[in-house]
């Protein structure tokens, strides 16, 4: 054994600082949560949604219930130009008696501009016909398929014009003209023309809709700008952005306040049952079991029917009450279980020995120690409350029109899903993002707060 085997160590270099500041439960949880990128990002998404719901109307002033039937189902960032027109009655066009042997009304064309105020069509006459039938469709008619909506008839082979003023929207239409014989039967050939319609308005209409301040500021033939709708409009011409804000207020209000209330109810009920114990606990828990066994959505619908929404009411309150009344037992069970455990902990025993009174024992030691579990329950209850609200509004059992919630907006949007999908996509997206964020945050909180679940995944 050489001298090298035994060498005095230098003390100074090896002494490690092994202390770190002691952390409270919540500080520790906060650090864990921050380390979880997904959960932390979700927290910001949720804050963003709340800001959108509450502060949004301060920035974006448009009334969510204001309808503009001239601008229905506009896509996001739609064209804002409007041609100012005046309407003069049109005498129409009468042709000479048809010559030749063409079977379909050829050379179908538009007279003047095709605008939402009117579309005027003329065509060449068809021999042996007794009139014409005009069809309109929003997609190109395929061979063999119906031509669309019959919007008018003309009488006589020589009346070869038609003026369409029927609820025209600024988009493309396919007009078809078919000749009909004496018996009113259609000729087999049809002429079809695609017409791109521009948005136009009359001066009186523009003033009424609030597009312009006074009628002297524009002249016929000018182009004016209609109000901006960044996310488009719905089927009644209501601004999607402001409706999404109103919907966010209502969906998040129900989604957050209802779970908050029933979790509090659950904490009170559960801690009483757990602390007092014995037969009292038994009876309370049997009652909770009973409420849990009730079919949830059926009772939500019954509640809604019972409250009977009067005119001018939104139907939010009945939904809130029903959610709280039916959902508290889950939280109560959980808290009771926690209290039963905590009751036997050493620090409770110690505190009791030191003479702490029961109320203080419950408030100071027991309930704070259940808060981790309660917070996780609350976070997971929010998405399911939002889903419930959306589901009920979707089947027409939720908030009443014109109140917007994300669910009722989806319900409205489905009707126009194939032509203007944005009316469904936006509210559905908001529901999904919010639900997802709360789920991720719940996962993160569970990992951060609940020691037993920490190694689960």
């Amino acid at each position: 054994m050489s001298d090298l085997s035994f060498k005095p160590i230098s003390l100074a270099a090896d002494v490690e600082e092994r202390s770190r500041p002691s952390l409270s439960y919540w500080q520790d949880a906060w650090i864990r949560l921050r380390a979880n990128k997904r959960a932390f990002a979700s927290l910001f998404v949720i804050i963003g949604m709340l800001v959108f719901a509450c502060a949004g109307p301060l920035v974006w002033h448009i009334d969510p219930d204001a309808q503009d039937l001239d601008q229905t189902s506009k896509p996001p960032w739609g064209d804002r130009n409007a041609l100012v027109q005046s309407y003069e009655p049109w005498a129409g066009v009468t042709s000479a008696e048809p010559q030749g042997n063409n079977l379909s009304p050829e050379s179908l064309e538009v007279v003047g501009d095709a605008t939402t105020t009117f579309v005027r069509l003329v065509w060449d006459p068809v021999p042996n016909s007794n009139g014409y039938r005009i069809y309109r469709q929003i997609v190109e008619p395929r061979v063999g398929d119906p031509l669309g909506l019959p919007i008018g008839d003309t009488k006589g082979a020589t009346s070869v014009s038609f003026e369409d003023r029927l609820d025209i929207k600024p988009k493309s239409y396919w007009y078809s003209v078919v000749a009909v014989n004496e018996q009113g039967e259609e000729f087999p050939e049809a002429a079809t023309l695609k017409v791109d319609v521009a948005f136009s308005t009359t001066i009186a209409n523009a003033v009424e809709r609030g597009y312009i301040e006074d009628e002297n500021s524009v002249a016929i033939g000018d182009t004016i700008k209609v109000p901006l709708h960044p996310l488009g409009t719905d089927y009644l011409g209501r601004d999607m952005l402001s409706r999404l804000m109103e919907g966010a207020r209502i969906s998040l209000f129900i989604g957050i306040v209802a779970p908050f209330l029933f979790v509090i109810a659950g904490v009170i009920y559960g801690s009483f049952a757990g602390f007092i114990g014995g037969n009292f606990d038994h009876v309370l828990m049997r009652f909770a079991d009973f409420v849990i066994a009730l079919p949830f959505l059926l009772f939500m619908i019954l509640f809604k029917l019972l409250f009977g929404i009067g005119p001018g009411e939104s139907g939010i309150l009945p939904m809130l009450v029903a959610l709280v009344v039916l959902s508290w037992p889950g939280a109560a069970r959980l808290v009771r279980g926690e209290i039963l455990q905590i009751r036997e902990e050493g620090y409770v025993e110690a505190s009791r020995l030191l003479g702490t009174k029961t109320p203080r024992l419950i408030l100071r030691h027991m309930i704070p120690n259940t808060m981790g579990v309660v917070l996780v329950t609350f976070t997971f209850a929010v998405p399911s409350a939002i889903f419930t609200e959306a589901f009920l509004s979707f089947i027409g059992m939720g908030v009443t029109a014109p109140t917007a919630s994300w669910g009722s907006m989806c319900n409205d949007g489905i009707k126009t899903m194939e032509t203007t999908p944005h009316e469904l996509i936006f509210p559905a997206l908001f529901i999904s993002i919010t639900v997802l964020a709360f789920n991720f945050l719940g996962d993160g909180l569970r990992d951060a707060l609940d020691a037993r679940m920490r190694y689960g995944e």
Partner: protein
Amino acid sequence: MIRYVLWRLLQGVITVWFIATVTFFVMHNLPGDPLADDKAVSEKIRENLEAKLGLDKPVVQQYFIYMRNMVGGDFGLSFVHENRRVNEIIRDHFPVSAILGILAIVIAGFGGILWGALTALYRNRWPDIAIILLVILGISVPSFVFATVGQLALVTINNLAGFEVLPVAGWGTVAHMLIPALVLGLGTMAFLTRLMRTSMLEIVSSDFVRTAKAKGVPMAQIFSRHQLRNAVLPVVTVLGPSIAGITTGGFVVENVFGIPGLGRYFVLAVQQNDYGVIMGTTVFYGAFLVLMVILVDILYAVIDPRVRLE
């Protein structure tokens, strides 16, 4: 075991009685008039109608008649559709909902267990990540969006193919059932996948699996006999809530796909204020759901003897 079953059944009967009572009194205290119609009803017709529906008697007497009929399995008359018994409506429409629901449960159950097990086996590799992304979609998108998007996708597929690959709406053949059942089961499937993944991850790293591996048991056998069988247990516990979820989810899916099930009829009755049908179907649904939960509990008690001791 028998005591446990009897106790659960007694609880169930009390719950159903409560549901029936609440439904009855809610229906009889509603604002509005059940016989109000756009047709002007003369006094005489009104009296006859009330006599026919039993509305002329005092409420307490009505309640006892109603309860007696319920016990005898008679759910009463429709208020809107003349001479239509709620029993007939249930008999005609419930089987449709039941078939759809069973198919959805099967799809959700098998899908959830399989996907969940796969994600646990391929933890943090691409099958896991891909399936988890789908699960995230499944839990965060509402069922009615799935239903409409599913239907739209069907339309697009049929248009692209040039013939009807699968029917877009309606009822009758197996082809009609597939997409609605899938849509209906999707949310539950996502939930079960998540649950199964957690439970499977625990099992994968357990001692008995390591022992089996050490013994040289083939992987396929470890998977089917040791891992899957043990991991499936917690999935059974959530079957009850899943059945409830799928039953009520049917309200939406049946509406979107035009399926003549009881769920669609129920929503229609609520919208038409058909109090007779609402009362009858609510009690029926309530009894059905309570029975299902009891059956699942008993099934669980059979599988896991510890439950019975509670």
